[in-house]
């Protein structure tokens, strides 16, 4: 994988985006196995109904994992210096997640040429589920 060229990037440039398949109950079961998070809120319809919640919903960290994939499709993982997310809304079963990112700053950090990216994971109606930022080294 070749890294994007620092000098050729401008603030406002988008990185390649993707839209996930609809988040299904199978997705949540697979994520439970992969992550080790078997909380019944994400898996057990009987449990969530007993709590007055209509349906199971996605693990917040599933969305962050999708945004991680957005980053590692763009640069080798070793280039990622930091990556943070705020969880703003719950992802419901059946929603597709649109993962996008853009350059918001070019900076030098610890002697490295870096870009700061703003990343968003939203549903197809544009409701943001997660807002994230990442610093990626391009030297």
């Amino acid at each position: 994988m070749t890294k994007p060229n620092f000098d050729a990037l401008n603030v406002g440039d988008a990185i390649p985006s993707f839209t996930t398949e609809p988040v299904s109950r199978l997705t949540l079961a697979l994520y439970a196995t992969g992550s080790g998070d078997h909380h019944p809120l994400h898996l057990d319809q009987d449990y969530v109904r007993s709590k007055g919640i209509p349906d199971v919903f996605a693990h917040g960290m599933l969305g962050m994992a999708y945004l991680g994939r957005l980053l590692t499709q763009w640069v080798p993982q070793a280039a990622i210096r930091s990556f943070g997310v705020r969880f703003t809304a719950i992802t419901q079963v059946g929603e597709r997640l649109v993962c996008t990112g853009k350059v918001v700053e070019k900076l030098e950090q610890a002697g490295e040429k870096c870009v700061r990216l703003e990343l968003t994971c939203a549903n197809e109606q544009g409701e943001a589920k997660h807002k994230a930022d990442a610093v990626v080294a391009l030297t």
Partner: protein
Amino acid sequence: MLIDKKHIGMKVPPHSVTPTAWQLKWFAKATGESNPIYFDEAAAAEAGLPGVLVPPTFFFCMDMDKDHPFDYLETMGCDLGKMLHGEQSFVYHKPVHSGEKLDFDGVITDIYDKKNGALQFVVKDVKVLRQGELVCDVHSVMVIRA
């Protein structure tokens, strides 16, 4: 009930995790990962890696990989049924692969509230070490609703 701020500075019981290629394969499948260095040991070896590559957010999963992942909130008397994940961030220092034993060494770094205590925030910072070398910082903010 407000969480006692005396817990700021409290050490989280440490634990160790060795990520396995088996679990990472399922994580890759769940997250739609198609790059085989994240799930195929042979492809990782061909790429010169000592094991499959641990993806960026998997450090959170490993931090939670213990019998009582929210033991520190239980110590503070929090109702885990009222907990939400507010923020999550990572600082990366070294790549990590399946088969490498990692030590998780955490501390509570802040406790604060908003909306007159309707929302309380517990901040945990964990250093992830491989044979004593810092590989990742994991920063988590959990929210407790009144």
